[in-house]
Structures are given as structure tokens and as C-alpha cells.
């Protein structure tokens, strides 16, 4: 290639004119970060999951014993079962609360300033850390906590309720409290994109409020529901601290299994559990994405 002066351009110019080279250059910073902080650690975890360990040493090897132990132990299935239970219940509650809140914000509040104000109010809990929000439940739910005292003074119960704290109830309550906003935001976002004239058209076609909800709003909100679902499922399935705090270390999920292994310096075993958890979550998300196309939301 020759430029207007008739001289052949330098190699640097030729390179910069190459569309592909410039494209790769632009993608490089993000690629490097993802490779360095996501891909490499995952590869490391996969490699370590095949190593062997004793109480006092870690031996590089290629052995399946971590996986054999994991799949051979009934505890694994129980703990995975509990993780799914937490994930499912939290999903069900955050979805019903999140959908309702988003619906109220998007369709009942007419003025945009009020909409924005109420939306910001929803985010206020996020101004404090997860741990503090969790811990603040303890004096409320405890045996002599506010909830029990109030119920006793109203005469609803005679004995303090034992299941309020350090139980599945308190774990799920904390999860719902922590993660409902992750449902509200994507659902609200999708709902705001629904053309309001569609609701009028539905009414013009004789749809009742409920029929409009079922036949128009829910189908059009599906991508937002799906994004919220992915947020909540991954957060709950990867969590260990909420389960530890809110169950008073009496309940277990996969995250706690991993954290226990790490605290005992059993890194290969922890890595194997992490790999299985990662694959489980990916499979769940893969199944979900088969049902709903979220691409147009991104």
C-alpha cells in the first residue's frame, strides 16, 4: 500500500490501519483484567482440586480422591440440598416482593420525581454493610428480643418463639432482606420500558387488571425477572457468612463447607467443592437461559 507521497508507509502505520489489530488493542485492557482476575484463579482452583492433602501438607498431584470423597459422602448431598432449598425459598420470596414493589413503582406512581425518590428509598439499606444489616436482626429476633417481647405482651404467645433466630427462618429472612433489591432493580428497569399504551390497549380489548398482569405485564417483564433470578441464585448459592451468622453455625450450605475446609487448610478439598458448586450454578443458569432470552435487555 502506498500513500499520496508515493512512499511505502512505515510498519507502525500499516499495523494501525489493520482493523483487527486496533480492535484487539481496544479489547486488551478488559481482557487482561478478566484473564488475570477471573480465568487464571479459576484455572488454579481447578488444578488445586486435583491435588492431595494430609493434615499437615499439600501435595501437587493428579488425583481424583477429593472428588471421590465429595461424591461419596452423604453430607455433600445434604448440604447441596440445603443450598438449593435456601436458594429456592429466597428466590420465591424475593421474586414476589420484588415484583410487587417494582410493579407499584412502575405502574402506580405516576410522577417521575416520586418514582425516583421512592426508588432511592429502596436503596437506603445498602448504605450499610451486609454484616451490620444481618447482625441487627439478632436483637430483634432473639429469645428475649423485640419480636418475642411484643408478641408476648400482646398475648399472642405465652412462650418465646424459639425458631425466630438461629434457624432456617432467620437465614431465609436475612437472605430476603439482603437481596430483594437485586430483584427490584432489573424488574423495575424492564417494567419502565413497557409502553404504557399497551396497558390501555389491553383495557380497550376488555382485559381485567389481573388479565393484563398475566397476559401483558408478566410476559414482557420476563427478562428482568430472569436477570434478578440469576443475581439472587448466584448470591445465595455462593454465600456462607449469612448462613453462619443467622443460623448460629447450626446450619450448613456449600459455602460453609468450603470455608470450613479452608480454615482447616484443606485447600484441595475446598477447591474440589468450589468446582462442583461453580458447575452446579452454571448448569442452573444455563437451564434458566433456555427459557428466556435476556439479550435484548443488555
Amino acid at each position: 500500500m502506498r500513500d499520496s507521497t508515493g512512499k511505502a508507509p512505515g510498519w507502525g502505520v500499516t499495523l494501525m490501519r489493520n482493523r483487527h489489530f486496533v480492535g484487539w488493542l481496544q479489547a486488551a485492557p478488559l481482557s487482561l483484567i478478566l484473564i488475570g482476575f477471573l480465568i487464571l484463579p479459576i484455572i488454579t482452583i481447578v488444578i488445586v482440586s486435583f491435588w492431595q492433602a494430609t493434615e499437615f501438607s499439600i501435595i501437587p498431584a493428579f488425583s481424583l480422591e477429593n472428588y471421590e470423597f465429595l461424591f461419596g459422602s452423604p453430607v455433600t448431598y445434604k448440604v447441596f440440598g440445603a443450598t438449593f432449598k435456601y436458594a429456592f425459598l429466597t428466590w420465591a420470596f424475593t421474586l414476589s416482593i420484588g415484583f410487587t414493589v417494582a410493579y407499584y413503582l412502575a405502574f402506580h406512581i405516576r410522577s417521575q420525581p416520586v418514582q425516583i425518590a421512592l426508588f432511592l428509598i429502596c436503596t437506603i439499606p445498602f448504605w450499610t454493610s451486609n454484616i451490620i444489616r444481618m447482625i441487627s436482626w439478632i436483637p430483634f429476633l432473639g429469645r428475649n428480643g423485640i419480636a418475642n417481647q411484643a408478641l408476648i405482651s400482646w398475648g399472642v404467645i405465652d412462650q418465646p418463639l424459639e425458631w425466630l433466630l438461629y434457624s432456617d427462618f432467620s437465614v431465609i429472612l436475612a437472605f430476603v432482606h439482603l437481596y430483594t433489591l437485586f430483584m427490584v432493580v432489573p424488574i423495575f428497569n424492564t417494567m419502565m420500558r413497557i409502553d404504557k399504551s399497551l396497558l390501555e390497549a389491553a383495557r380497550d380489548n376488555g382485559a381485567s387488571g389481573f388479565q393484563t398482569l398475566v397476559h401483558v405485564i408478566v410476559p414482557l417483564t420476563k427478562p428482568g425477572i430472569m436477570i434478578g433470578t440469576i443475581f439472587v441464585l448466584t448470591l445465595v448459592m455462593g454465600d456462607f457468612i449469612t448462613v453462619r451468622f443467622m443460623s448460629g453455625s447450626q446450619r450448613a450450605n456449600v459455602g460453609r463447607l468450603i470455608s470450613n475446609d479452608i480454615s482447616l487448610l484443606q485447600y484441595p478439598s475446598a477447591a474440589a467443592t468450589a468446582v462442583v458448586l461453580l458447575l452446579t450454578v452454571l448448569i442452573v443458569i444455563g437451564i434458566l437461559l433456555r427459557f428466556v432470552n435476556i439479550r435484548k435487555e443488555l
Partner: protein
Amino acid sequence: MRTGQDLELSHVTKRYGQTVAVRDINHVFTNGTYVCLLGPSGCGKSTTLRMIAGHETISDGSILLDGTDVSHLPPAKRGTAMMFQSYALFPHLSVRDNVAFSLRMQGQDKALRHKAANEMLELVDMIHLADRLPAQLSGGQQQRVALARALVTKPRVLLLDEPLSALDPFLRIRVRGELKRLQRELGISFIHVTHGQDEALALADECVVMNNAVIEQSGPAREVFSRPRTEFVARFMGGHNVIDLNGGRYALRADGVHFATAGLPATVRTIEYQGNHVAVTSTTGDDTEVLALIPEETFFANPKNPGDAVGLAWDEGRLHRLQA
């Protein structure tokens, strides 16, 4: 001719807080006519349409259809159907399911409602695209689907909210021909809101011109155009000059003005060639602008230039006294 099936507005008023969007309107829409509600934006024409449809509550007065008061019935129970400006097709449903939507809401079973939807799609010539999604259709095709969806409930009055505004000019002219044909075939009333007077003149059996929340004038399209009652109507419908003569206000048809030596003295300001005719704007002694549409051949037989002094004349019948 009045029949019992007419749509009647009686003292219909719409207030939003302190502002009045529609003020005490009385009008009878004769059954089976094509009516255009015409006016500038903010004149209350869309609000009037939406009140008839039931998407806007009325503050005062009543709406009667076929002798029954429908003012407080939900939209689907009124015997009206609305076609929305943006068509408002459900993006997640196929063309057929969009058209069948209202029947599904009534609980008709699938075979029955698909049959009815197919009939409607035949009517608007869209049956070959029945399985597409709205996003896969062009603007004109979407418009037909919206029309089919509105007609599937067999309404007695079809309400169209600026149905042609989203189409390009060529398509607009074709679609308006189709609308008129459809109205004639179905024999029901169409009430069509528009801000384009050419659209209204081309389509309407009856024109209703609105301004500032009231009806300025209504009547057959030709009558509204050639005999405007007020200065607003004369100016809005176009093709008229408004001039003061002998202490009165008159509307003067622009195509009725010609040049004559003995006429009203004026100075030519601008000349625009428009194909069929030449638009000559001139100002008279008291600075009134007068537009004259001179047939092309006549103009070029005796061409003028800006700055030329001319005499403006017209036939007596072309002058029309305005009431306000």
C-alpha cells in the same frame, strides 16, 4: 339523517385541576359516517376521543351511544374500539394472537378466536404474515394489524388516534384510501383524530374543527373548507386569506384571487412556483398579506417580480364574511 344508533356527546367537559381540556361539547356523530376531529395540538381533540373510548373519565356531561349512556362503562363494554397512535401491538404475541387478544380475554376457545382473527386478517390483507411478531413488520403492516385488532370485536364506532402520523407521506396517502374503503365496507362510524387538514378533507364525511377546548365548526368537509365560520377555521383549513373590508372580516379563497388593473392596489413580496399554480404573496396598503394562487399558465403569460405593483381582484362569490 339521525338514527337511534348515533353517538351523542352532551355537555361533555374534561377538567384537569384548574385547566379545562374540553369545554361543554355537544355533538352528534351520525351513524356510519367518517368523521375527522381536527385541530392544532392541545385543542382537546385527543382528549375528546379518549373520553369516547373510555380511557379518560369525563368531568361533566354524558356520552350516549345507541341511546344508552356509556359515560361510565369500561372501554370494552361501550361498543367502541380504539386504534392507538403507536399501534400498541403486544410485542410478545404473534400477529394472530394480537388480533385474537380481546376474544381470549372473553374466554373464547382457541379454534374459535383464531378463526375470527384470521377473518379480520383477511379483511386487512395480512393473513400471510399471521405468525410473525410485530417487530418483524413494517409500519404500514403494523397499522393494519392494529386495525384488525380493533375491528375484531365488531365495534359500532372505531376511534383512530392520529393513525397516519407514524407513516411516511407516500404510505399515508395509500393507507388513508384503505381506511376510507374499509369504513364504507363495514358501514360503521370512524372517528379519526388528526392535525392535518389535507387528511381530514380527503377522508371526512364530516369535519369537526376544534380549538381551545371547544368545537369551532362542524359540517361536511366542503362546507367547512369553503365557508369557514371563524377566522381560526379559515386560517387552520388553509387556502384562505383573512382581510378587513368595509368594517368587516372576510375570508377570501386564495385560488379566487387574480390580478386586474382596477383591483385593490398591492405590492408583490414573494413568488413561489408550486407546479399546478404559482403562489404570489403581496401586501396591501394597510400591510395585510394576501396570498394568490394563480394558475401556472395565467401567471407565466404575464409574469410578475417581487416589488411589482399589482391590483388584486376577485369574483364576488369568493368573499365570505366571518362571524368572529
